[in-house]
């Protein structure tokens, strides 16, 4: 995760002279500052009592929205989960439900 969003002053109202040359993006990890969670129309819900911590869901998440701490997954990062449902599809233990909002 980036310590600082170097692109925070660039937005859809910025004048052309205030943009970086060629649209270059400075710094890494700035996708963290972009809340793609707003796009979600269906929501996966974590069911911890069914979870065996196999972690199959973690690498398939396109938005890195399943945080892992000390080798165990926690609840979804709904700021970034776009609701694609891949984690639900891949879970062998019914530890994720997937509900239309």
């Amino acid at each position, binding site marked *: 995760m980036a310590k600082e969003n170097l692109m925070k002053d660039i937005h*859809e109202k*910025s*004048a*052309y*002279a205030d*943009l970086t*040359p*060629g*649209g*270059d*993006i*400075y*710094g*890494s*990890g700035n996708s963290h500052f972009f809340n793609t969670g707003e796009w979600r129309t269906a929501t996966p819900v974590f069911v911890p009592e069914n979870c065996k911590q196999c972690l199959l869901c973690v690498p398939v998440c396109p938005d890195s929205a399943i945080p892992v701490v000390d080798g165990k997954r926690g609840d979804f990062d709904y700021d970034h989960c776009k609701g694609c449902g891949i984690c639900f599809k891949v879970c062998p233990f019914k530890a994720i439900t997937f509900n239309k909002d």
Partner: protein
Amino acid sequence: MAIRERLSGNEAVSYAIRQVNPDVMPAFPITPSTEIPQFISQYVANGQIDTIFVPVESEHSAMSASIGSEAAGARTITATSSCGLALMWEMLYVAASCRLPIVLACINRALSGPININNDHSDSMGARDAGWIQIYAENAQEAYDNYIMSFRIGEHKDVLLPVMACQDGFITSHAVDNITLLEDEKVKAFVGEYKPEKCLLNPAEALSVGPYDTVHYYMEHKKQQAVAMHNAKKVILDVAKEYEELTGRKYGFIEKYKMEDAEYAMVIIGSSAGTAKDAVDELRAQGVKAGLIKVRVYRPFPGEEIAAALKNVKAVAIMDKAESFSDIGGPLGADVRASMFGVCNNVKAINFVYGLGGRDVKVDDIKCAFGKLEEVVKTDAIPTGYQYLGVRE
């Protein structure tokens, strides 16, 4: 002490490349530019330069690799002609929009079809709107000088645009000509080290290059490119001034030849300008007040300078070594006439398409174009604005 030599245009550019010792050269051979990657490969094999030569499988790859390499922070060059440039098309625009000062030696050759290996300007003229600076040479000396100056122009912080240094295929690229060269250390000092402010290979600073532009950003980035192209005008003159101090050779956007009192003018690009100078001298000896404007820098286009130089002439022949099939003339014709609008209201103009696919351009051909100007002035006729010169009818 300058070095007196005799070199072909391709040898001259290769000599300059050896002196600059760029970091990377991805290239794919195509006539008549083939000698350049060939010479550079030899220099690399001989250990004369430490350029990384990247043999690629197409020109699309050559430009793609150039983009990656320049974005990484390496001074990058390539060379091509004709269909090779056409195959780079998509990536030419990306190089320009990513603001990467790649230097491309374009050895002008007719673009197919029909397939033809000889000179005209259809390849680079087709790429004129890609966002590259374009500089054209009359002879091997100018090809050498323009090439060395290209790095300073493109890499300037107010510009950051790729540069196409063009010369006429075979006519200058393969003709041995007298040339004055600079010593290696002088070229190295003039061009300097390439130190981009931002580059991908900088572990201290993360960078993403070439991201998708949404509707909210694309136009602003195009405006930035347009401003950079405008800024290039000052930088081109500043660099030329510095180069003149080094070499004594003077360069501008255009070269005016006997224009002070000219009544009949010609605007022309490339090697034919030399032939046209001889034609102007012959016409002057016959009492015709002929003059010439050679366009050296085509992008950015020196419209104001050309219009100012044409203000007092009676008629002008605008010479295009490329078709545009617009039915109203070629690309130079369109740009010059647009620049003349409102400034040169009483100047008659004929746009000639000439020298396509290697059709030889003789002193007499140039005199024939001037003859047509005299005729329309004498008869006060409205000229046919778009004509072919030197075609069998």
